[in-house]
């Protein structure tokens, strides 16, 4: 009896810690001003999405795919996607129009800031990448590779709203209006 009760207690504690852990990861990006990024994107959305000539192809997969990611993998997937955009999409895109370029640059800087915030959060707790997170990351990279670089970059930029919506949902970011 005593052993059972002790084991139950331990299990409960572990569960609590796990939930706390996952939630803590979800709260890593709380201080980010997502609304600013979303507004910037809305201003260039028309211009960028108009250049996307392949509507039946997607890079970031669909929202459903991203929605299927479990809370434990959120940290890994967020980290990977931020790296994808900063390292590949923003670098590959060549924007001729200065106004649009300005907005894209502001979005890119925000992503850099988010990366740093996430890194600080991760140093306290280890951000393990599960199998599913790894799979999703790989699929995205493959989709990007299937298209021509410029088209892929344009398409990825056009899908920023999907990425931002996913971050909103999974990181409980409080956006300041």
């Amino acid at each position, binding site marked *: 009896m005593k052993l059972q009760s002790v084991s139950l207690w331990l299990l409960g504690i572990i569960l609590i810690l796990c939930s706390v852990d996952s939630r803590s990861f979800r709260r890593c990006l709380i201080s980010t001003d997502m609304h600013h990024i979303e507004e910037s994107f809305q201003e260039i959305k028309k211009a960028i999405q108009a250049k996307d000539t392949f509507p*039946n192809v997607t890079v970031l997969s*669909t929202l459903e795919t991203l929605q299927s990611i479990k809370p434990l993998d959120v940290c890994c997937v967020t980290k990977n996607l931020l790296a994808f955009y900063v390292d590949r999409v923003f670098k590959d895109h060549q924007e001729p129009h200065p106004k649009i370029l300005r907005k894209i640059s502001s979005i890119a800087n925000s992503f850099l800031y988010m990366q740093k915030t996430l890194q600080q959060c991760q140093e306290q707790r280890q951000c393990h990448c599960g199998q599913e997170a790894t799979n999703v990351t790989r699929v995205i990279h493959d989709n990007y590779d*299937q298209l021509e670089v410029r088209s892929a970059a344009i398409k990825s930029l056009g899908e920023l709203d999907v990425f931002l919506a996913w971050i909103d949902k999974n990181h409980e970011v409080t956006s300041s209006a």
Partner: protein
Amino acid sequence: MLLRLTVLLAALLSLRPGSDAHGTELPSPPSVWFEAEFFHHILHWTPIPNQSESTFYEVELLRYGIEPWKLIPTCRQTLMLSCDLTAVTLDLYHSSGYRARVRAVNSTQHSNWTVTNTRFSVDEVTLTVGSVKLEIHNGLILGKIQPPRPKMAPAGVTYESIFSHFREYEIAIRKVPGNFTFTHEKLRHENFSLQTSGEVGEFCIKVKPSISSRTNKGMWSKEECVSLTRQYFTVTNVIIFFAFVLLSGALACCRALQLYVRRRRKLPSVLLFTKPSAFNLSSQRPCPETQDTIHPLDEEAFLKVSPELRNLDLHGSTDSGFGSNKPSLQTEEPQFLLSDAHPQANRTLGSGEAPELGDSCSSDSSNSTDSGICLQERSLSPGTRPIWEQQVGSDSRGQDDSGIGLVQNSEGQAGDTQRGSALGHDSPPETEVPGEEDPAAVAFRGYLRQTRGTEEKATKTGCLGEESALTDGLGPKFRALLDDEEGWHPPALAKGYLKQDPLEMTLASSGAPTGQWNQPTEEWSLLALSSCSDLGTSDWSFTHDLASLGCLAAPGGLLGSFNSDLVTLPLISSLHSNE
């Protein structure tokens, strides 16, 4: 693979001008766009330039990244420039978005596709409000915002369920004739209340929704108007009114209570003197009113006086300003408390007050000279005192005087003996007095009782009920009279009192002829009479004394004049005879 794609693209692009070269190729619609509200997604397009009657448009829809293009048959109608795609885009709020494309088709040809510029996603939905309901409560406008409730929405999907957080509404108000004023404040809830700060009239309100975490645009709702009328019978007004009534009632009660507590108490009937009726001494000299000088005595205390004292007429407050000093009373009984207007006259009975009385009396002596009152001597030795001391206390003998003006003798004379000595020593003390005392210091010494026979209650000069005011009035007159009288000199054995005035040569010779004394005595008797009349129906025990003096016989009235009165003459003669 990329290379292949690029080659294909190039080929297609090169081929396109060729296809255009067919000539009858229809132009594609210039632009296609979505106009969407909550579960009301409408695709719009602009018509082709040369539109014929048989031209119709085809619409295809694509779910972004998932499906191929799907034709929408419901939109295949002639000359329609919009199409409702809500039914096929129900999943808009949970998906990445849609793309739609339109082309013009006529009988023989079809144009190229024109695709929507942007990916149609939830970001493109314009937010609207279903309805706004306004109510008025107590001068407040209460509003309730109803979100849109479209028919096409699937079961269980509502505006609140999709946009669960950060719903906000901006309000614009206007008073009917004027323009809209924007509050620049955002409501976080669907229920709101507006303060109109007492204004009356018609108010119109419109609302614009938004989601603070999203970039969706909002659309102003329709105007809802409500008219405010001035309400007089609001709950607050009624409560205030009743509170006011209660407060005023309470205040009135308090005030009434206060007045009742401080009400002017009536004098006991004993102390009320009826005015003298009919007795008219040819009033050419209006004497000061005796009624001013009434010193009401506490009847109860009066009753406690020992019978001896009662017999005295010396209970002197009723005198015209005699300061009565009744030390014996004080020792035996509670004192009479005299209340009167005149401070000097208000001598409480008490031995201790002799010096004070003396002061006051002396101060007022100028006024209350005659009427034999206020004697106050400060002198300690009874011998030096003018005989005045009829202190009741000591004496219990009603003095033969009108028993009035008790002199305040702190020594407290023993009694009759003193008086007797006083009596006997009328002249010597009199003579002594002016010599001994400083005339300047003592203005008035009161009256020397002249001839005091065995009877003591003989004269009534300076009678009861007179007040110092009366005496004041009479005094000067008296003095005047005295002055007027030629050859008058106060007889030593006068029945009444000789005014002792150090300044004047009056006093107290015992040998004054009675005849000459008549007039002053006359006047004094008049005084007595008047004072007696004032007594009226008082219950004082010594009324019988007054009777003996003949006071009762005389009707009341102030001394009208000092003219000799035939009525009084017999009395005087009687007095004289008594002696």
